[in-house]
């Protein structure tokens, strides 16, 4: 069996971390908008994570993960440089369509900044004028603003508490962009469903194409289980093979949010049981002192597990 070695790790905050994983074939094949399914150990679950970056020369892919559920918190503790993931499959999904738009706004909410980055870069490389909008709850949670800014012609930062950039949510940034630019061809929005819904509403009246990347629950990611089915303009689509990018103006976000709560009970019990075990286990001190995620954390959004935005 292949070994998916973790070659680098970076912690952005108490809950957000980056893993760079060795996978030369995937680094070669990856396109913006695609995702992978990760299994951290043989007893684990398969979790979909959008590719945040890849490096063809080094043969690595980059994932940015937020620790909110049992699996992502366990990975936060167990995934160290030199360690291995049990399974990494992909790249899955239809790559984003890049190249036709002349002026694009790429919106990333919280963790969504990571998966929208490859799209912003691809738009930039295709010669488009790229406006980046990133939203976080506060300055401390910000990451990649430099990296993201480097592929944008203009970067608008929004924070809920006003500690950086505009005070307000990303929709405030969208309003600003719409005010300043009359010729926007496309919005690309990635973040929690409620944020994507808000952004789609904000652009609907302007009739500007708004692509969102959906994050339903998945098992296989290859079109086999139908667990990730979403309603797009009244039609049932499978996010894993028909998406994950869809026209935000056609997406039934309420249906998506309901379906994301399918296993809330089991997820809560698994996370609680895991925390209990961790207190008993002999874990390094610095991990023990990590602040646990707030109890009312928006559980579970296993695609990107974004908070804030």
């Amino acid at each position: 069996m292949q070994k998916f070695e973790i070659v680098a790790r970076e912690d952005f905050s108490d809950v957000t971390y980056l893993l760079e994983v060795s996978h030369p074939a995937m680094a070669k094949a990856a396109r913006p908008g695609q995702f992978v399914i990760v299994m951290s150990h043989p007893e684990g679950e398969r979790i979909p994570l959008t590719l945040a970056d890849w490096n063809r020369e080094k043969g690595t892919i980059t994932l940015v993960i937020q620790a909110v559920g049992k699996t992502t918190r366990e990975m936060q503790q167990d995934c160290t440089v030199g360690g291995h993931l049990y399974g990494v499959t992909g790249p899955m999904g239809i790559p984003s369509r890049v190249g036709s738009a002349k002026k694009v706004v790429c919106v990333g909410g919280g963790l969504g900044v990571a998966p929208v980055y490859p799209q912003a870069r691809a738009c930039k490389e295709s010669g488009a004028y790229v406006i980046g909008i990133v939203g976080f709850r506060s300055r401390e949670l910000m990451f990649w603003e430099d990296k993201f800014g480097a592929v944008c012609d203009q970067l608008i930062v929004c924070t809920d508490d006003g500690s950086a950039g505009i005070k307000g949510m990303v929709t405030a940034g969208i309003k600003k962009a719409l005010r300043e630019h009359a010729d926007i061809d496309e919005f690309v929005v990635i973040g929690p469903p409620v944020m994507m819904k808000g952004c789609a509403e904000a652009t609907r009246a302007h009739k500007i194409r708004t692509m969102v990347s959906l994050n339903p629950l998945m098992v296989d990611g290859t079109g086999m289980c139908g667990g990730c089915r979403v309603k797009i303009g009244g039609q049932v689509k499978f996010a894993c093979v028909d998406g994950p990018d869809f026209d935000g103006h056609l997406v039934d976000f309420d249906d998506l949010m309901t379906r994301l709560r399918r296993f809330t009970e089991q997820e809560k019990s698994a996370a609680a049981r895991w925390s209990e075990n961790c207190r008993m286990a002999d874990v390094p001190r610095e991990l023990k002192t990590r602040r646990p995620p707030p109890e009312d954390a928006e559980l579970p959004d296993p695609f990107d597990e974004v908070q804030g935005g």
Partner: protein
Amino acid sequence: MAKKRTIRSIPRERTPMPEQPAAERVRNFAEVACGFSEADALRESERCLLCPEQPCVDGCPVGIDIPGFIQRIGQKDFRGAYDVLTDTNLLPAICGRVCPQENQCEGVCTVGESLEPVAIGRLERWVGDRAIAEGWAGAPTIEPVPYRVGIVGSGPAGVACAADMAKAGCDVTVYEAFHLPGGVLRYGIPDFRLPNEVIDAEIGRLEKLGVKFECNTLVGRLFTIEQMIDELGFHAVFVGTGAGYPTMLGVPGDSLNGVLSANELLTRCNLMRAKEFPAYDTPLPLGKRVAVVGAGNTAMDAMRVCRRLGAEKVYCIYRRSRTEAPARAEEVHHAEEEGIEFHWLTNPVEILDDGQGGVRGMRCIRMELGEPDDSGRRRPVPVAGSEHDFECDLVVFAIGTNANPIMGQTSSLKLNKRGYIETDETLATSVAGVYAGGDIVTGAATVIEAMGAGRRAARSMKAYLGIRDPDRPYAIDGRGAAGRMFGFDPAERNFARVRVG
């Protein structure tokens, strides 16, 4: 020479299969049919008349020399029986368990004309299990040839093709998108019907033949079929990706939480081992009253899984009658024993919302059978005004699958209008060197039919590459070795050098 057997001299009754009692087995995932003992196998082997017509061989999609292996069981030459079986069927322990024998070999058995047919499947399984227990590898001497063959999908079609190509001396790599090999055998068929250990054992024997398995590899997206030929150095490729894109019924309420495909339920339970949650991390939706729509083998599996997971009531909702149900007879029988309630001639029209995104019940309509349709089965037509509701909290759709779209999205393979891969009669696709077989060509069918397709494709691939098996020609198309010429199969036309003696 023993006295010739006649229909009067053989044991009249079929040897019963020892089974776990229904009351006990609904609380565990251990196998229902425990398998023959040696005495059972010997007794049952005496029921075969060894008739000259051998209709069973024609009835078998891969043409196993059935009288041949049964005769060897009778002679207590169990290893010999195994060799006869593996000559044509690499996975006897699996096929003995999951083939619909009553429509195949056993359905045409001569004994079956007056008595119950010989229990061919059970004997096959017994030999296969014996081989696993004894560690018989059945690895022939393989003379390497300088060809690399890539197989996409490690289900029944893929492994059958892989085995044949490996025996022919090719360097074979099988790619699987999941983290474990086996395809539908692994994710689709529950442990109580096909234990994972049996799959592991059969896959292990393939590895002994030199077949390499690469899991976590989604062909089409990680690399394309064309790249396999152009860049990865494969001389021939076989596509056996199956047809696992589940159909949802398209009635109001079918996107509610609490409505899922049988594929999802079974994958969570079998492959991801959600039945052992929380020891395994994957959760399962549990229901107290479960309605499963459909009456194929997948539906039976889904119902029996739900029963074992603690559902109090499990209903089977099927729009036709029992006669038309596509499941194996044994599965329907087992499901009935386990207390599944069958509602024949019933079709859902709406799934009822509990107000919180979940399921409160299902509205159904009664059906009656009209004129036969294209499939030869009588078409069910709704009875006006017969709508009725019943309570349930989980709805599982097991109403068939469509072609998976990934191959179509990522390759230039020609597809038919339903999305399945088009092939000619040799199973060659529109791309040179690429062959396809199994459900991705025919639509959903059986394990053994997929294996038959994998083997037919292997034969074509060998012809394409100009190679052949060093010693043993294949028994092909149900004709056993009878059709061979100078020890070679004339159907296998190619310009390979013929080595005689």
